């Protein structure tokens, strides 16, 4: 296959990636790379200036995204993507700050950061790759693992309740909440575009296959089988009540945009309050920039 040395047209996604690091470490049939295509296409279609985009990840297989994208990015410690991103956004409000991380990182160790950033309505764009498990560390049960699933820490099956992420994030205060799967590549790209147009805490859950550690232990086939399963059982229900969209091991997956509302974001509230209280004494701080 080495005949194919000269590519006459380049994949537009490559512009957004550190190609010297590709091939990446993700397993065959892992959905994380697929979601990155949707992300790159959203930036292309929305004509976003990538010099004003920063990507922040925590730790995990998904956290690796920060290392593969060519935008300014930071791979924080486990669970701390949101506080890092919050600081970044407050210090430089012109930046589009994206948090790209895993379900475990955002909702287990980082769960408190997430709910409080949503409560304060910090202007962050959060993309959560939900493979229903702690993948990188060997497939342990996480707060998103549905009932009756075999994991390395629940060899007889999980029995404790799991989080319904859209419901949780809506209750905490997010202004934009959507869910797609790795199968919904175009819908996901459109949703990411919408998120870039939004001000305030925005959240997209992306269900994604982890054939190596989730599907394999549960005899659910490989990545392709999971993608076919998503195609088969997903129902698009925009505006669905988030309390009704909880996931089960093999039941229907409700996808779509669930929440799209307006609420003053944290920085505007802070600005207004300081201006109110200090009047002429209030001096707007210059945005920090990196040249």
């Amino acid at each position, binding site marked *: 296959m080495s*005949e*194919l040395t000269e590519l006459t047209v380049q*994949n537009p996604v490559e512009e957004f990636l550190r190609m010297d690091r590709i091939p990446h470490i993700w397993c065959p049939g892992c959905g994380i790379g*697929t979601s990155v295509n949707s992300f790159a296409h959203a930036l292309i279609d929305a004509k976003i200036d990538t010099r004003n985009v920063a990507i922040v990840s925590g730790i995990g297989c998904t956290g690796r995204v920060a290392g593969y994208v060519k935008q300014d990015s930071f791979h924080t410690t486990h669970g701390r993507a949101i506080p890092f991103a919050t600081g970044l956004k407050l210090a430089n409000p012109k930046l589009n700050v994206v948090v790209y991380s895993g379900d475990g990182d955002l909702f287990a160790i980082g769960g408190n950061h997430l709910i409080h950033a949503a409560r304060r309505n910090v202007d962050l764009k959060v993309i959560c790759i939900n493979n229903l498990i702690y993948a990188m560390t060997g497939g342990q049960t996480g707060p998103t693992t549905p009932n009756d699933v075999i994991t390395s820490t629940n060899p007889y099956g999980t029995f404790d309740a799991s989080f319904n992420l859209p419901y949780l994030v809506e209750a905490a205060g997010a202004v934009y909440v959507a869910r797609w799967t790795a199968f919904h590549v*175009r819908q996901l790209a459109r949703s990411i575009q919408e998120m870039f147009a939004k001000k305030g805490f925005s959240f997209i859950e992306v269900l994604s296959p982890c054939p190596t550690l989730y599907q394999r232990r549960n005899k659910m086939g490989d990545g392709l089988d999971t993608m076919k399963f998503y195609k088969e059982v997903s129902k698009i229900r925009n505006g669905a009540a988030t309390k009704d969209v909880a996931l089960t091991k093999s039941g229907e997956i409700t996808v779509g945009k669930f929440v799209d509302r307006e609420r003053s974001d944290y920085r505007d509230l802070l600005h207004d309050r300081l201006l109110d209280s200090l009047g002429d004494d209030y001096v707007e701080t210059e945005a920090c920039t990196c040249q």
Partner: protein
Amino acid sequence: MAKGSVQIVAERCKACGFCVEFCPTHVLALSSAFNAKGYHTPYMVHPDKCSGCDLCGMYCPDFAIFGHKDAAKETVAAAAPVSAVEAKEEQDAR
């Protein structure tokens, strides 16, 4: 006449089959040849049916394939890693 074509960087492919499964016009198939890591990479079994929609590229988790409108068809012909006979066999088997 095909409206589009694909480019494949075989050495990046991990043979997940997403591109083959989700191409709307079933242009692709996994070949019987291997890349250096031992994966069966895709090739165009029905090049004439390609619309250049790039859905294969959107699905590919490894950035190994992408579709585009027109142009560069010659490179693609070179990318088919199997003999014409094998290609014919796979086509018949579908």
